């Protein structure tokens, strides 16, 4: 197991990757990516049981599904730094002929990705299907998924939430990134989500919270707690509060940086706030 300091260094480096990737192509989604950096770093380096290499079926290992595919920068950075594909390939993000499409896809054969996402609200259904396949295969591993909070406005989620509880899909840990922001503003202004915890509980889920999703220790502890709650007849939901844009001060606490790239000067400020630790790609 890596030391906490190593993981913190990794998180800082991932933040550098994120802002550099979106700056280079002047497009992409830094806000949610920065907010979920601790989650991805913890999941892929401390929590999930992973085999060497990559195969689509993923039998005998934990699997992760990203439903809010627009936060591809953090996903790609963490996958590359976990060894799924060459780090230099981060240079190709959103460029023509790249495996690193704007939103993640299996179509170009990028190792680590098992489903396309981007059109919102579809990931939980896919995660449930993969969880059912684990059960059919008598594979005791866990399915993890991540969802934006604004994404819960898509109705398909509630079909999936109903199914997972009703059919006791208890090898599934679905995390909601509760950053309270979406493209047009605060979630509670655009389309109020209300009490997300009570809603999941009413559907029959075991719900827990990570109150500071940008505190690496808290995220690790929360994910370990969630894992201990699997296999008990209920799907597990983590409501994880994060700050969109966390780690780059001018991107924090606003929806403005949901899908906008920094200019040259802003990049320098962002990088100064996140000094190089493990080496830039």
């Amino acid at each position, binding site marked *: 197991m890596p030391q906490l300091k190593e993981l913190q260094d990794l998180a800082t480096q991932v933040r550098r990757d994120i802002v550099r990737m979106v700056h280079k192509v002047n497009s992409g989604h830094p806000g949610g990516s920065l907010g979920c950096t601790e989650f991805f770093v913890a999941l892929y380096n401390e929590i999930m049981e992973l085999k060497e290499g990559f195969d689509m079926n*993923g039998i005998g290992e934990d699997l992760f599904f990203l439903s809010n595919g627009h936060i591809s920068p953090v996903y790609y950075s963490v996958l590359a730094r976990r060894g799924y594909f060459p780090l230099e390939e981060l240079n190709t993000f959103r460029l023509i002929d790249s495996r690193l499409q704007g939103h993640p896809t299996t179509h170009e054969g990028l190792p680590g990705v098992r489903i396309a996402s981007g059109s919102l609200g579809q990931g939980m*259904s896919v995660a*449930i299907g993969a969880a059912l396949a684990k059960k059919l295969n008598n594979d005791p591993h866990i399915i993890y998924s991540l969802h934006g909070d604004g994404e819960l406005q898509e109705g398909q989620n509630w079909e*999936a939430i109903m199914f997972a509880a009703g059919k006791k899909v208890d090898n599934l840990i679905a995390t909601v990134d509760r950053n309270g922001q979406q493209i047009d503003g605060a979630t509670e202004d655009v389309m109020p989500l209300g009490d997300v915890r009570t809603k999941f509980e009413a559907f029959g889920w075991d719900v827990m919270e990570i109150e500071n999703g940008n505190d690496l220790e808290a995220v690790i502890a929360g994910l370990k707690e969630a894992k201990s709650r699997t296999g008990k007849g209920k799907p597990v939901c983590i409501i994880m509060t994060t700050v969109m844009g966390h780690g780059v001060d001018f991107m924090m606490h606003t929806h403005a940086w949901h899908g906008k790239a920094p200019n040259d000067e802003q990049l320098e400020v962002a990088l100064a706030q996140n000094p190089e630790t493990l080496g830039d790609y």
Partner: protein
Amino acid sequence: MKKYIDQGKNDTRSGYGAGMTELGRTNPKVVALCADLVGSLKIQEFIDENPERFFQVGIAEANMMGIAAGLTIGGYIPFTGTFANFSTGRVYDQIRQSIAYSGKNVKICASHAGVTLGEDGATHQILEDIGLMKMLPGMTVINPCDFNQTKAATIAIAEHQGPVYLRFGRPKVANFTPADQKFEIGKALMLNEGTDVTIVATGHLVWESLIAAENLENQGISAEVINIHTIKPLDEEAIIKSVKKTGCVVSAEEHNFLGGLGESVARTLAIHHPTPQAFVATQDTFGESGTPAQLMEKYGLNNKAIEKAVLEVLEKKA
């Protein structure tokens, strides 16, 4: 004219159910999903014999498509079941992103296609599904003609790697395909050789085309009848070869003329061998309530409509 014997009227959806029963016994990777229409899809026997490989998702088709995509990750071959309308139009983006673009090995099995669903009316009678599905890159689109062919197609698609749309229907129709005929995806079937006109038909309109060909023979017109059970990939070679001989073509399908088999045939011929064509299909309209026979008559989808189209296209022949 080659004679075809109706072995006893049956519904193509029961062919799907029979195919699923056989797959349940022979292929442990096949799993079935259904959105509250088990009785309509005729899969109770599969469920009774393989309860652990069946997933009832309730009235939630979008979720069903996503779960099916997820089940492929782990090696399973999911067959989703609901009406054609709810298998396509209702869930187009789920199929597009989670299944087609993601290259998932899901079999989308759709009953009650077209106007022959009957009395339920236009809300349930999709006439656009072939178009929707054939436009998706990588999607195979199959519309078998009778019970035996639907059963064989169901079994065949389990062996095919990649997403498939399998379309069938509600009414009992003539069952004339030999029970032991193997289903070859993408391979057109020559049902009757002729010299004056080519009739390319799919689904329920294949039997109607055979009746039309017989009537035409009595008028001295020799019609070639080809069963195009696979609309994508289309057996272009078989169609081109036939029209080079006959010089004109009628396409026949229980679908809108926009987006259906007829358009695929027209495109093929426009590129390779421009040929006068007549379209037996619905004319950019919704359906309505009625009996299947009444609707096929009113919307111009029966053997009389095919016969009329043949006479019209013969006029255009050079």
